[in-house]
């Protein structure tokens, strides 16, 4: 098991290097630092001196890959590639384009993101599984058919409508909760409720329909027929046999997204002004802060790969038939 994890981590390394090179290419080769400086300083009446000054203050004034001016290892270390890309592997994100420490910001903003993401995930999971179980229990009947139709209808509504509509209805018309904002400590609860509710509702359509197929797949298997043949009640078959086995794909699916919860939800956080990593990313995109976007790309990729490894480990834990080799 331990050897397997080590090998998987080692396998992840080339992928991270690939991501690093790709983002570096996107950010520094497709457009030169000069272009970036011009975008930040405005298009017109930019003197070359101003561009040099901007590049100098943000650390973009070095050569891209090889610094011929230095000697020894400095030839490779004293470059933009080393400064901006290689250091990411040590989770040294550097400073954003407006001079803040990115690592500090990320640590600060992780908790609000999780405060929204974890309850949404847990409640969403419970709701989706119950709904899917209900449809699977009454499969082939009108309950099932209308449930599926409802799912398709819910799926066809953009997440934006759930957010805007929910915000308008619950916060503005009914005044149950504040429209947006965030506070630390227990006061946060009243700010968290609305995003969580909307996050759960917007996921019901696709989630339940997906889980329903898992349940139906299990319900068609031989061991289920055997269970029925030996005279088990349908509810017992459903909860004791089908639910347990269908939980395998559900649990592994959840494990895969667990690490990504740190990244927060882009839409929910920015609509409800939650100071999490999702809104951090959106602000960075809108302010064209390339340093932050680069850091978030790297962080997101690392978390995704961690998720993949965790899925494989979970498989062995929940399904004894799977052996890691």
């Amino acid at each position, binding site marked *: 098991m331990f050897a397997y994890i080590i090998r998987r981590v080692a396998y992840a390394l*080339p*992928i*991270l290097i*690939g*991501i690093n090179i*790709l*983002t570096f290419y*996107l*950010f520094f080769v*497709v*457009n030169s630092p000069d*272009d*970036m400086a*011009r*975008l930040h300083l405005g*298009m017109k009446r930019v003197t070359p001196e101003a561009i040099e000054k901007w590049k100098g203050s943000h650390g973009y004034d070095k050569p891209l890959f090889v610094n011929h001016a230095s000697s020894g290892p400095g030839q490779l270390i004293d470059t933009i590639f080393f400064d901006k890309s290689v250091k990411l592997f040590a989770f040294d994100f550097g400073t954003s384009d407006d001079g803040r420490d990115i690592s500090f910001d990320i640590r600060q903003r992780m908790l609000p993101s999780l405060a929204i993401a974890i309850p949404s995930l847990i409640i969403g999971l419970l709701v989706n599984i119950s709904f899917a179980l209900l449809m699977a229990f009454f499969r082939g009947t009108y309950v099932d058919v209308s449930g599926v139709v409802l799912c*398709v*209808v819910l*799926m*066809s*509504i*953009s*997440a*934006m*409508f759930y957010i*805007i509509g929910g*915000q*308008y209805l619950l916060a*503005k018309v009914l005044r149950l909760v504040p429209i947006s904002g965030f506070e630390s400590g227990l006061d946060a609860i009243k700010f968290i409720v609305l995003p969580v509710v909307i996050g759960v509702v917007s996921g019901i359509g696709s989630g339940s329909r997906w889980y329903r197929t898992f349940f139906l797949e299990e319900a*068609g298997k031989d061991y289920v027929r055997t269970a029925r043949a030996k005279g088990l009640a349908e509810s017992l078959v459903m909860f004791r046999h089908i639910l347990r086995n269908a939980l395998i794909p559900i649990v592994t699916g959840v494990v895969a997204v667990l690490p*990504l919860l740190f*990244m927060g939800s*882009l*839409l929910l956080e920015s*609509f409800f002004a939650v100071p999490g990593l999702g809104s951090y*990313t*959106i602000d960075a*995109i*809108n302010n*064209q802060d*390339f340093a932050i*976007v*680069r850091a*978030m*790309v790297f962080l*997101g*990729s690392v978390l*995704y*790969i961690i998720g993949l490894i965790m899925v494989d480990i979970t498989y062995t834990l929940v399904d004894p038939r799977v052996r890691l080799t």
Partner: protein
Amino acid sequence: MIKPVILWTDALIFLLLTAVIVFSVYARGKPHLRAPWQHVLRSRIAASSLVILLAFITTGLLDSLHFRLPLADNGNGKQTHYAVEVLSVLDVLVGPLRTRVEKTYSAPFSTHLFTRENIEQPDGRVLRDFPRLEYAGSHLADPARDRGADILKRSAMASLQTLPAASLLLFGIALLQGRRNGQGTHAALRDILQGRTEIPWRVILVTQSLLLLLLLLAVNLGSAYHILGTDKVGQDVLYQSLKSIRTGLVIGTLTTLVMLPFAVLLGILAGYARGWIDDVVQYVYTTLNSIPHVLLIAAAILMLQVYIANHPELFETTVERADIRLLFLCIILGITSWTGLCRLLRGESLKLREAEYIQAAQSFGVSHGRIITRHILPNVMHVVLITVVLDFSGLVLAEAVLSYVGVGVDPTMNSWGNMINGARLEMAREPVVWWSLLSAFLFMFALVLAANLFSDAVRDAFDPRLRAR
């Protein structure tokens, strides 16, 4: 003379259209290709969603024929200059919707502006009130009294016009059906009305008639009112929603068109060749998949913005600039979404290469290229088709989110995402400006729901595993 403008996305759309037409002509003579489609059409839900989808597609195609009008001749007769504004056939067809621009917000069917303004009375006093709209309801002497009756009259007119048109459709189809089945028009008509035809013509006709009614209502009422209100700069919201159809369709279809060659080629190659090719392909798609999609799209679009800002000379009109951005968005969305299909195809061809007929072909000495094109490709086409159709609605929805994040289509381009984005601030106004959001919602919901229902039917018909059950 008008000057036709062929935008990049226009060219690709019509390329796609040609491909679809060529394929359907080809498939007509092949029963095994026709059968699953007939299965799709037999489903009542799929048939009526197809009618709705076709209505959207027609609008989108009309909106893809672009041209520029010549400016008034300046006399020297040598060289005509053309207006900067790029129009489409749809713009011409909807005529007044585009040109009748009010001052600012006005509610649906309203005859007065949404905000108060200072109005100078004939006797010189200044009154603060809601002024009359310049175009909507301007034919009414006293809007408060006449408006309801006028709207009723126009709606009744539209319904009356729908009847003959719908009956014409019914008789046309009955005539064709009767001739094809050799049963005569009368019998065919009875079968259709009783819903006993193989293809659910009755459902199709009902859907068509409803669409026709909507169209005629829009024509009758739209010529006198702003049915869905006007936006901040007084632009008709119905017009915006109609123009957004093309954007949604382009994102939904061209993205898959762009990604398809890569996904199919690399996926089949990886599964068929195995070895180091498989490793490389797997490495590439795992890497691309690891990057959070929104961030990759954001990074790419930010870079494009920098590029466009630094090379303004490449784009003659704002429409062309917006179009390049749209195309680029499709490409980058394609790059992030091809990985799923590629993985599916790899698995499928790994399975297929061990199949007996492939082994037989190999032992006969058929070349690898021929095995892939003749034997593997046709047998994975159902996977490709199902993925393409299933992806469509997701991409249309993604456009809205991306436009909100600020990395979607150009802000000058009409799109549902931009409409929703603008509606965010409008919802915070007091009283609320709700009609932009509602229109974007209605149009998007209709398109995505129809696409979802249709794709479900396509999946049921093409997936052999589902068909066996």
